[in-house]
């Protein structure tokens, strides 16, 4: 070690006393759970915020298209509402993530960068395909309604499912599968209904996810 701190040997000698096995087991479990909690950016309140964000973002778009006959797509005001909520959501996740992973370095940092780049490319591909559909004469109802609302969520769900499977995170995997099913099912609601169905569906699933996180957190604290 190259740190230049003064060693407090008196305090260290005092700490050298052994532990009762029961106390050791309790300390081990408490430390492991606290470390896992502090190093993980996900939390019930973050999921709760995501539920509210989904409802407000998709709700804003739905309000802007619900009276359109024929369907033209989200208005500028509706899109501004959507992007504002998405920007706030990204900012809260980045803040929580940076806080949780402060001081962590190594392999997982480069893995996260590769995952982020992959997701970015996949989302760009969704919008390139949207441009191609519009260019090939697909209707506004398909391009700016059913397709974009569904494809974006399916890409996000697939990405999170793969990430969760690699980390053996069964709750995250369940959430991702639910998001993909909501996206696919919402496509049947048509160009206007897809936004409302996505918003309400995501909100319900994320509320359930937040409740499950809270329950697990309380259970682990009680066990410890």
């Amino acid at each position, binding site marked *: *070690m*190259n*740190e230049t*701190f*003064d*060693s*407090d*040997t008196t*305090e*260290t000698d005092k*700490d*050298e*006393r*052994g*532990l009762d*096995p*029961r106390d*050791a*087991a309790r*300390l*081990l479990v408490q*430390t*492991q759970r*606290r*470390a*896992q909690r*502090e*190093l993980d950016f996900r939390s019930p309140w973050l999921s709760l915020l995501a539920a509210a964000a989904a409802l407000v973002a998709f709700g804003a778009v739905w309000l802007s298209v619900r009276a359109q006959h024929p369907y033209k797509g989200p208005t500028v005001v509706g899109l501004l509402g959507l992007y504002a909520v998405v920007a706030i959501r990204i900012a809260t996740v980045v803040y929580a993530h940076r806080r949780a992973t*402060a*001081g*962590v*370095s*190594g*392999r*997982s*940092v480069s893995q996260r960068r590769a995952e982020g780049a992959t997701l970015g490319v996949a989302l760009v591909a969704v919008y390139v395909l949207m441009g191609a559909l519009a260019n090939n004469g697909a209707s506004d109802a398909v391009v700016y309604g059913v397709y974009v609302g569904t494809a974006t969520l399916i890409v996000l769900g697939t990405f999170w499912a793969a990430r969760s499977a690699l980390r053996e995170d069964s709750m995250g995997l369940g959430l991702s599968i639910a998001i993909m099913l909501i996206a696919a099912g919402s496509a049947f609601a048509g160009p206007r209904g897809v936004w409302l169905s996505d918003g309400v569906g995501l909100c319900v699933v994320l509320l359930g996810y937040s409740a499950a996180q809270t329950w697990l957190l309380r259970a682990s604290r009680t066990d410890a």
Partner: protein
Amino acid sequence: MTVDALDPLIHVPARLQIVATLAALPDGDALSFTRLQDMIGLTPGNLITHLRKLEDADYLTSEKTGNGPASRTSVALTNHGRAALDTYTETLRSLLNGL
């Protein structure tokens, strides 16, 4: 089986906390000295003494990057350290089942 069967290097509150905290990181990751100190709540001097003992036993590795005030030391559990914690946990479980 008695308490003596437990690895004496780990069977100390501070070092048990250090090893358990570092084991929560994914394999191949390291934690900065200051973050580890924040998470465990030991004084810098106390922490560094325990880290040295664990490093001497090849339970963890440390790496210093940068110079002067901007320097940063990171610590990571080695495979040997992870195996030692697994063995410690198993021994502890056997001991508690026998009590």
